[in-house]
């Protein structure tokens, strides 16, 4: 099925495209650039059910780039990538969600420190539309006693185990073949966890799941059915083992991104810490230096609406949180809409504006409070859009993104003018 081409790449056989069932993963003539260099060009790879493809090779060869391209995290200069025969990303800029859930473990974990182990893994199950009892799995990896702990409190090795379980879970839950992408999964694992991982890979392979793993680790390389150094490939046989018994029970999920964003906010209180305090500081500063009695109503309404506006300019706290360990990238691979602070904006905006109207206008004004909720929501949405636009940069925190925020002052000033007439 996989045929070496003239340039040493491996090409998709014609037969596999026409008569065989769709591969779990197809990379067709892809070219990826990072920095100013071309990492690889004209690269083809076909991964079928029961394949364990281990990518090895020297540092900088492009192993992680392959994994991240398969997870739709990198744009393609040429070619296309398909999951289960459906396009997920191509060089024309088309980007679709994979129709079947897939497992992903990034080199930098992609975990949020404020999540508990249980909550994080439950969310991974929900992304697959399933639920399961996580205790036996956690026990197998020596994490049962850490089930309700925050990931940030775990050691580096324990956090890595959670990241590896995150990647394996979609396959562990499903009776249908699933694709699993693991980037350096053995790094930081103790011997017991590594042995368990290798055993799980073997059993999941027998159950029909497929793996693409970037690793140098000799034990991981031993469990490969295909060893690929990004130039050439060798096959190796694996002994038969007991197939994995799927653990998942189907579950209907809705509003997962919203619910997850809300949980992030609840566990970190980042919404109050960043946006709420910014707004209160603005209100405090205005009250400290200005006597409201001496000003006309339009200016006072401006002061009232300054608080939700400032809170919005502080940005979406969930986006800020997800910069930790590339958690945002992990989510971006799985969903079209990242977790967001959806409920924060209207609630905080209404509250802050209500407080402002009592302080500056001497009475609670519900109409202005509703406008304030809208101001915070719209501002947060714009700032979030601008911030997400720069996430692909090598140093997104170093870019002067706040220089673009004055674009919001004119619309805000027009809203203030309107609100003053109410």
């Amino acid at each position: 099925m996989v045929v070496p081409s003239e340039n040493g790449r491996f090409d998709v056989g014609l037969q596999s495209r026409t008569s065989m069932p769709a591969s779990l993963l197809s990379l067709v003539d892809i070219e990826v650039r990072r920095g100013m260099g071309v990492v690889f060009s004209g690269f083809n790879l076909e991964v079928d059910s029961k394949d364990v493809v281990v990518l090895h090779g020297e540092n900088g060869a492009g192993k992680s780039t392959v994994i991240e391209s398969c997870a739709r995290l990198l744009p393609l200069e040429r070619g296309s990538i398909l999951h289960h025969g459906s396009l997920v990303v191509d060089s024309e800029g088309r980007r679709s969600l994979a129709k079947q859930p897939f497992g992903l473990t990034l080199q930098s974990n992609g975990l949020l420190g404020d999540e508990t182990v249980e909550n994080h893994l439950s969310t991974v199950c929900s992304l697959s539309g399933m639920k399961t009892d996580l205790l036996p799995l956690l026990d197998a990896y020596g994490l049962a006693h850490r089930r309700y702990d925050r990931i940030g409190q775990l050691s580096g090795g324990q956090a890595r185990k959670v990241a590896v379980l995150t990647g394996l879970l979609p396959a562990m839950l499903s009776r249908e073949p699933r694709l699993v992408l693991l980037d350096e999964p053995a790094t930081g694992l103790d011997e017991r966890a590594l042995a368990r991982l290798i055993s799980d890979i073997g059993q999941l392979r027998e159950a029909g799941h497929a793996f693409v793993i970037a690793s140098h680790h000799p034990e991981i390389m031993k469990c490969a059915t295909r060893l690929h150094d990004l130039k050439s490939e060798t096959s190796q046989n694996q002994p038969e083992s007991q197939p994995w018994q799927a653990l998942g029970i189907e579950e209907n999920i809705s509003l997962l991104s919203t619910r997850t964003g809300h949980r992030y906010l609840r566990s970190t209180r980042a919404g109050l810490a960043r946006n709420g305090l910014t707004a209160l500081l603005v209100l405090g500063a205005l009250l400290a230096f200005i006597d409201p009695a001496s000003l006309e109503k339009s200016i006072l309404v401006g002061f009232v609406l300054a608080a939700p506006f400032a809170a919005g300019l502080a940005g979406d706290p969930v986006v800020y949180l997800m910069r930790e360990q590339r958690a945002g990238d992990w989510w971006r691979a799985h969903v079209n809409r990242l977790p967001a602070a959806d409920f924060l904006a209207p609630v905080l905006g209404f509250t802050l504006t209500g407080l402002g109207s009592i302080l500056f206008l001497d009475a609670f004004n519900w109409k202005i409070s509703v406008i304030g909720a809208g101001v915070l929501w719209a501002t947060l949405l714009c700032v979030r859009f601008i911030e997400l636009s720069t996430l692909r940069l090598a140093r997104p925190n170093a870019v002067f993104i706040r220089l673009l925020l004055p674009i919001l002052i004119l619309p805000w000033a027009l809203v203030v003018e309107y609100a003053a007439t109410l």
Partner: protein
Amino acid sequence: MRRRFPEVFLGIGFVGIMSTLFLGLNWAPSVSINAFESPAAQRIFYWHVPAAWAAFIAFGVLFTGSALWFFKRSPFGWRLHVAGAEAGLACGLMTVWSGCVWGAAEWGTPWDWTDVRLNTFGLLTLLALFLVLGRQSQPDGVETRDTFSTFGLYGFVLVPLTYIATRIWQIRHPGPVIGAGDDGGSLQSSMALVLLIGALSFTIFIIGHMMISMRITHLEQRLEHAQKKLDGGN
């Protein structure tokens, strides 16, 4: 001689700008004291309008360069983007600064957050500042170029908006004095002459500036390529 074109353009442009300043401050007639709060401050107009004109040329180059990089992956396009952003920043700051000076004298306030023309032009200048500072903060690469050229493309929406702003919403910024669409025009011939010299000078100057900027970017790229070769990369 051809290699010296940018310096020649810069030199001619600089002399022209200085001449415009001299003529604008000393030779051009004064405006009516009835029409303006501060008639003397109006002379800054001979600097402000040509600078804004040159800024629009620079933003046009920025847009062209962004499109060439984004759609064609053209290294020449990226050099145009960099040159357009730098020139747009320089001319944008000259325009905003001179506008604030005039606004302070004429309106009693240097800025009005509710005036569409002021805000959209200010934003264009901030966009150029963002592109210049942002590029310096990032390693060169397709990710950097894609992201900033996207901002260059989106930002260009502000150019036509800025142009038509005073025709649709005349809040504080004066309406157009050239190409207003009325038959007479409101400029005396000597005023128009100084303005024309200013616009030409700024245009020549900004072209020279962009040519030099493109040359510097090209040299930076060659240097980086040479360094990569020394590192053993491709």
